[in-house]
């Protein structure tokens, strides 16, 4: 009978790019049970949108996620535009799709690199990120920034695509085509890679539906669900593509789905560039949005992204709710890790392409009996932390001065 130990992965760990804590109970190298602890990264994004105008909120929403920034801002704008009764031009819709698919390429290449790095395959990691750099250069030139492109604006897009940029895009897509074909060959043909990825982090079709998994995680288990097909927005209805599904239902399947999705994305980018209609890119968007509430969906690289906006007729949204795709994928995480080896845990965590800070939200719990809310204000929180350190570590923190917050 071997001893059980609890190994914490996180909050600070080389495998995690953002803080989160996974407590794994091990027996030998096998994981008996896992506890997922997120919540280290709350940024108050939704709240800060409420005190800003729609244009300002857009840039907050764009920074929900560092990788799928375009998806979030598009999803938010779909809500805002529907509330304001504004319809974007077709050219703007095509440019949004173009950016969205380039973003998918960059996100999936990033994931491929991270997954390769987690299993120690740094050579593949370097190639994937080298190719991602090509996409990032395109995005920087089209949008103006490498990750938070800032191309979206209420009522359309801020920048047009020039013929020279189209040439750049097409030549980069040629390079990517060749590289992606090689990655497909490699993913299917390297036995060491297959030995590490196959039968790891299983989540069957039924479990995917039960836990509400979205995106490549669900599609790897034959869940044929893609918002681009199910409820197309922007110009997705006009662009032909296949929804990639796989039967493996494990990390290997997720890899295959992502790599093949990139191949589809390259085709979509080519189609969008070739069939881009002429016309304006921007229609006027009112400062004050009529009252109402809207839910909008968008297929981010990581899965289904849901935004909810409630307007009250003023310049500011009254309530914004962001359901990032990682939030849907967390629920099955403990189930995926349990029963696998410790060595696979970082890989399984990474396989949903998690975005920790996108998902962290604060809740206020109301006590139904007393009507009390248990919320700390700033002073109480500080007092609590001082007491905590005194009790747990015998360290008096009350003398530490906190700098005054200043804007200018």
């Amino acid at each position, binding site marked *: 009978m071997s001893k059980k*130990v609890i*190994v*914490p992965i996180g909050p600070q*760990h*080389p*495998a995690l790019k953002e803080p989160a804590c996974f407590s794994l109970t*091990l027996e030998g*190298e096998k994981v008996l049970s896992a506890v997922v602890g997120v919540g280290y990264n709350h940024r108050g994004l939704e709240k800060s949108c409420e005190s800003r105008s729609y244009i300002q909120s857009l840039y907050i929403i764009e920074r929900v996620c560092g990788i799928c920034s375009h998806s979030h801002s598009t999803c938010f704008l779909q809500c805002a535009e529907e509330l304001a009764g504004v319809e974007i031009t077709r050219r703007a819709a095509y440019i949004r799709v173009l950016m969205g698919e380039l973003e998918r390429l960059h996100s999936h290449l990033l994931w491929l690199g991270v997954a*390769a*790095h*987690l*299993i*120690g*395959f*740094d*050579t*593949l*990691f*370097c*190639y994937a990120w*080298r190719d991602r750099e090509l996409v990032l250069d395109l995005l920087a030139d089209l949008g103006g920034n490498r990750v938070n492109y800032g191309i979206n604006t209420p009522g359309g897009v801020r920048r047009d695509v020039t013929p020279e940029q189209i040439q750049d895009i097409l030549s980069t897509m040629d390079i990517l085509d060749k590289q992606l074909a090689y990655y497909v060959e490699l993913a299917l043909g*390297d036995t*060491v*890679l297959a*030995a*590490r990825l196959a039968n790891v982090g299983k989540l069957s079709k039924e479990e995917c539906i039960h836990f509400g998994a979205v995106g490549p995680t669900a599609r790897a288990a034959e869940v044929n669900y893609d918002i681009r097909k199910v409820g197309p927005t922007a110009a997705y209805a006009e662009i032909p593509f296949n929804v990639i599904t796989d039967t493996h239902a494990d990390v290997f399947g997720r890899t295959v789905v992502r790599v093949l999705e990139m191949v589809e994305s390259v085709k979509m980018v080519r189609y969008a560039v070739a069939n881009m209609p002429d016309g304006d890119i921007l229609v006027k968007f009112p400062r004050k949005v009529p009252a109402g509430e809207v839910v909008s969906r968008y297929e981010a690289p990581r899965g289904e992204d849901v935004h909810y906006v409630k307007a009250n007729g003023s310049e500011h949204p009254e309530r914004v709710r962001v359901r990032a795709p990682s939030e849907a994928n967390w629920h099955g995480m403990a189930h995926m890790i349990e029963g696998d*080896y*410790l*060595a*696979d*845990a*970082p890989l399984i965590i990474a396989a949903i392409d998690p975005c920790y800070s996108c998902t962290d939200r604060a809740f206020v719990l109301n006590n139904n009996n007393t009507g009390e809310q248990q919320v700390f204000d700033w002073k109480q929180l500080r007092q609590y932390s001082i007491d905590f350190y005194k009790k747990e570590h015998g360290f008096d923190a009350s003398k530490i001065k906190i700098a005054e917050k200043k804007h200018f």
Partner: protein
Amino acid sequence: MALSLFNILIFPGFLFLGVYSLAFEYIDRIIYARMQNRQGPPWFQPLADFLKLVGKETIIPEDADKNIFKALPIFAMAAVTAAFLYVPITGVNSLFPFEGDLIVVLYLLTIPTLTFFLAGWMSSSLYSTIGAVRAMTQLFSYEVPLFMALLAPAILAGTWSLSGIAAYYHANPLWILVNIPAFLVAIVAIQGKLERLPFDMPEAETELCAGTFTEYSGRLLAIFRMAIDAELVVVAAIVAAVFFPIFVANAWLGFLIFVIKTLVVAFILAIFRSVMARIRIEQMVIFCWKYLTPVALLQIVINIVIKGVL
């Protein structure tokens, strides 16, 4: 006496080993980087890393036994340096050859792995403990095929001395072709011994932070890393002596040939490291016992049969 001291401390002993292992680390890293289409480190990077670590504060965990914690890196370095003295460098003969030094060298090279295990165990940290257990599990998997792969040529040569083996294959170079399976087994097992990809589970960065060395810092970590680099040189030198029987009488030319041979081994090891993903510990155990050991065993049988026929 003075010459012996010079040999032990300067060439080909401690100082040369130190400088050569830093150069080896650079070559290993630059090949690794170039295969990944990266720029790679500048030539002084290993030395800079070493000096930086030496200058850093050394932190010892409260629960660890301080004396053993401090002594372990020095043990590792000493064992590797001692092993280097029995490897042929400038010619067929090593510095102090004797019958059976192959066994001594192989056992001396086991000591660093044991110190890694103890270092992890002594650190009394979760990650290091798991790393230590993995290092031990790994030792039991690769050690047997590695020993057999190096002993098979010795059986054919009819001697347990590295210098004797080198001399035998220098005299009969064609027999080395018989040992090709043993060479392949040795190259794979060495990756396990040096805890390099695909067998770097004991210090798998993305799972266990730094594995056995998680709690080590400063000067102690610098010595440990130096020992690992030196181990690479020693192992490459052994492989070069046993499997590449090219020797000349001239000491300077012999040294040049030694450098070329070890570089070839380093190149092979670097390529091996670049193209593999890290496998799981249980996959490694299965692989070593299921594939490596039978091949090494077959090699020994073949060599015994050939020896009998001769």
